[in-house]
């Protein structure tokens, strides 16, 4: 079976470390998702990409590429994972049900900052990733340069400046979930 004709487009997106999500508001991406999910296409593409040393991986409503052997060293991966943990932690404390499919407006988060000291503290902690001083810039940087640029959210409504969390956010949750904390360590952590 031949690779679908959108293979180049799929590779173009995935090879940049992006995700193809089923709930993207971009119709083109949704279409690509459907094409990968289509009967037999996933296996075909997997074979196709493995020939150039990439592994097409399937997640909960999203696809992404990985390698047989990563080019990033462990330090970089740890750094990235730490950043993701901080970001997920921040948005989860903004809204405990913040997950794939949620919608949010930066202005709402800014308003909540005024009444939620914990949230403010966490945003302060994120400064080390964004290197921005004001809360507004900091938040903006995190949303646009991190969440959106890495393909975990996208601007859905430009008029309201409303963002949508994509299903690739599940990847972050799964990653965090798969970190195993031994029980004796769990007991050390205060409530």
């Amino acid at each position, binding site marked *: 079976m031949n690779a679908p004709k959108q293979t180049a487009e799929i590779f173009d997106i*995935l*090879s*940049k*470390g*992006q*995700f193809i999500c089923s709930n993207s508001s971009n119709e083109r991406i949704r279409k690509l998702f459907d094409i990968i999910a289509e009967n037999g296409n996933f296996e075909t593409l997997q074979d196709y990409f493995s020939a150039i040393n*990439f*592994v097409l*991986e399937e997640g909960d409503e999203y696809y*992404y*590429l*990985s*390698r*047989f*052997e*990563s*080019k*990033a060293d*462990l330090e*970089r*991966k*740890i750094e*990235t*994972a*730490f950043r993701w*943990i*901080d970001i*997920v*932690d921040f948005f*989860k404390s903004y809204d*405990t*049900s913040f*997950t794939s499919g949620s919608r949010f407006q930066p202005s709402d988060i800014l308003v909540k900052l005024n009444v939620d000291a914990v949230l403010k503290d966490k945003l302060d902690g994120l400064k080390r990733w964004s290197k921005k001083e004001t809360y507004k810039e900091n938040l903006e940087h995190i949303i646009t340069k991190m969440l959106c640029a*890495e*393909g975990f959210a996208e601007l859905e409504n430009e008029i309201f400046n409303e963002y949508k969390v994509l299903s690739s956010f599940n*990847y972050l*949750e799964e*990653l*965090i*979930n*798969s*970190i*195993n*904390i*031994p029980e004796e*360590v*769990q007991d050390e*952590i*205060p409530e």
Partner: protein
Amino acid sequence: MLSEMFEKRKLLSYKYDHALELLDDNQDIIQLLISKEVINQNGSYVEIDETFLDFFEQILEVNEVINTAYINDNFEEVKHNILYYLQENSESRKNSYLKAVKSTLKKIGRITIRNIVDLKRNVENTFKTEPNFKVKLTKLENQKKKLTDIKNLIQQTELLITEDERTFFATALDEELRSISTNLQLQLRESRHNLIETQKQIVEFINQIKSQSEFIEKLRQIKYLKDQFEIRAKTNINALLLEANALAFEKKPSYPLQLSLEGLQGDAVYESILKINRKVKTKIKPFVLIADSISEEYLEVETEEEIHINMDEVRNNFAASGNHLFDFIQQYQFPREVTYEERVTVYCQMISMYENDLEITEKYSRHDTIEYAMVHPKRSRL
């Protein structure tokens, strides 16, 4: 006043002063209500008596608490009345029991549906608004229990109509009863379908909350370890990330490709080149060397006059003269003073310039120290 108090029954307190204000400071009415035990006074607060509150809620069908016992009561009542009906001999008293059964059956249908609607709303409200995860979970679990109760009641009622008291429904030949019981069965069936849907929803909500709260807890622990710089030592994050080879971890790749030289020749590319050229504006401005100003001296006009000997003119005059060249030049009136040596030079120049126009003879003549050839104008030309 009562209606306002009823509206605010959810609030814990309703001030006596507020009530008074509402009644235009008419203390008598409040005192009357208190004495009739419609409302209770508790310090500076007043509240509607529980019995009346229940009564209002049921009349207005606005209760938020699902009361399965209430259905159960009605159910028992139907059962008893049926029993009385079957045991009673007097026709008129039989009728009164029948009437009671009919009204209770009607009520059961209505209450069941009402309860299901309330339950559904409560479930959704709890899921959406309850901020505390643990409370939310317990509340939903309780609602799930209530749902099972309602389900059982529906089942019992259905059994009652179709199986247990079949004799009663067969013997009591009453058109209205029949329509009521059919109606009730329809209502019950609808309720059952609704319940199944609600149950599905509750289970889904509970699962979501469980996974969410578990995740939040996990996230909190991980964040704590991370902030304590213990995460790498105490968890398997190193091993985990060694395994994780997703491209998302890597730097955004860029693929620098050389431009196609042929492509650059195209007209379409020209626009792009212009565009990029506009962007590439360096801040370094090329420094232009400025020359010193030209001094006044150079600008002054100097004229040097030289009187030029027009050889053509000399030749033309010579051709007309009929004299030989050397003599002609010696006697020629030049525009300026011309020395003997110069006249000899002119003689030589004339010969070299107009050789073809002159006839140079073999005869020589002498003047002072110079020996010269006799030169005449060419006859043929003249």
